[in-house]
């Protein structure tokens, strides 16, 4: 199973909008909640109430500061959620000695079959994105399942058949869909906003795409906007001149 399918019927994945992510971690915790209770073993926590506390999470939100070149440009801060990108050429799959890691033929979701996993960690070594975490209590590899147990789940109302993180994101910065279908909403969004791959040089061909932040601090300079602040009256005429002119508009 460790070989990758030559082709998948769909390429399900996420599109993450770096222009609107406010870094609230909602997706992180809803993912933790869903996946603790659902697919496979619970996501465990160590030293839960003490020092050196840590735990398994399938989705983490980083933040980066970017300093534009221009001398007077302000630094920007970008919140950056990251989970498995369900790569087309997923190196995590091919390195797996047990076949526990696999990419689904139907939809391209990359999963770990926990009952086969020996917890060797190699798949996590092979993943450039840090999308896999070895659960300390269970000893098996954990990763984003793209909520495979939600998106087809007939016990959920139709509208809820989407990943937990997408459903919960308050800013609407996460989108889910078939990136293999050029007509899907997500594909259109990617085309429109110049969606990008992370670490393209790693050759993983991620399915998940990131929408870059829109240009910041790009309000027109005052000279362009000046007509909107044209004084109504020249100073010498004083208050009454101003009043007359101003009220002419009524």
């Amino acid at each position, binding site marked *: 199973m460790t070989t990758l399918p030559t082709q998948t019927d769909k390429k399900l994945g996420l599109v993450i909008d770096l222009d609107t992510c406010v870094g609230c971690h909602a997706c992180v915790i809803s993912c933790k909640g869903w996946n603790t209770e659902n697919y496979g073993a619970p996501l465990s926590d160590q030293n839960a109430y003490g020092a050196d506390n*840590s735990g398994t999470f399938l989705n983490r939100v980083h933040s980066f500061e970017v*300093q534009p070149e221009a001398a007077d440009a302000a630094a920007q801060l970008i919140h*950056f959620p990251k989970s498995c990108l369900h790569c087309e050429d997923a190196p995590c799959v091919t*390195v*797996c000695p047990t*076949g526990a890691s696999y990419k689904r033929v139907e939809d391209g979701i990359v999963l770990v079959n926990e009952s*086969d996993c020996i917890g060797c*960690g190699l798949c996590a070594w092979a993943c*450039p994105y840090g999308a896999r975490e*070895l659960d300390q209590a269970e000893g098996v590899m954990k990763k984003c399942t793209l909520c495979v147990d939600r998106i087809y789940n007939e016990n959920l109302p139709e509208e809820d058949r989407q990943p937990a993180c997408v459903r919960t994101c308050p800013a609407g910065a996460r989108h889910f869909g078939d990136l293999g279908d050029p007509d899907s909403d997500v594909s259109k969004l990617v085309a429109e906003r110049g969606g990008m791959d992370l670490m393209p040089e790693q050759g993983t061909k991620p399915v998940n795409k990131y929408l870059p932040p829109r240009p910041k601090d790009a309000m027109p300079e005052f000279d362009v906007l000046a007509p909107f602040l044209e004084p109504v009256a020249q100073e010498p005429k004083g208050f009454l001149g101003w009043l007359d002119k101003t009220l002419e508009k009524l």
Partner: protein
Amino acid sequence: MHPAPSVIFFTVFSGLGFGLLTWLGLGYPSVTGWTAFAFFAIAYAMAVGGLLSSTFHLGRPERAIKAFTQWRSSWLSREAWCAVGALVAMGLYGAGLVFLGERYSLLGIIGAALSMATVFTTSMIYTQLKTIPRWNMPVTPVKFLSLSLAGGALLSGQVTAALVLLIIAGAVQLLTWSMGDKALAASGTDMASATGLGGIGKVRAFEPPHTGTNYLLREFVHEIGRKHSQKLRIISLVLMVALPVILLALPFSHFLALLAVISHVAGVLTARWLFFAEAEHVVGLYYGKR
């Protein structure tokens, strides 16, 4: 990368063990009976001990058997097969030598080849990882193989071969360091490509996603100071190559040979610690660490 003792032990001792088996398989030294038994015992202790130690690294060692299934694609799986193949072949071959006093040389050659293949597959587990540019180079397997052969020569008492191979292994080691130091930069993976934000300007990691630690940080983010690593490189090279070469160049004595072996093993352990500790996994970039 986290320099996990289990993995360091595994790679070092299985490398030495299979190196020794390789030489034994080729008939160097050509021993039989109890002498052969002693050599084989040492080789098996190292190879099998190394393999066993690798299982300490597993989250679910009781399922290790499953690792044999994916030989078509996984180097780790291939390693498992090669190792078993080598151990079986060399076991039969060794039994012939020890109990029957017979040398089935074809079997020995096959066993030797499988032993080297095992070392090669081990090295490929690391070499294949694009995520760790320092390892992702053709010279990585050369290093593992040369070291294994040199160590095997040393253990099997092949003084001349050992002298030559040690020097080669040392040279390869130097080469991996100098290439490795440039590998991350050369890989094209950096904060800009990791985040896709390079087009806006210079990217710097700000708040990490969690103040606590996690598996990724423990496993992949191990920062070691440059000064520290230079020192350790010298120590490892001295112990691994220079000292054994000097000791071997001196008139032969078992004691000096033993010293040479100990020094070499200590050197390889140090080098292997560095192999992991210095290796930069690209995921560190997301945490602002290299």
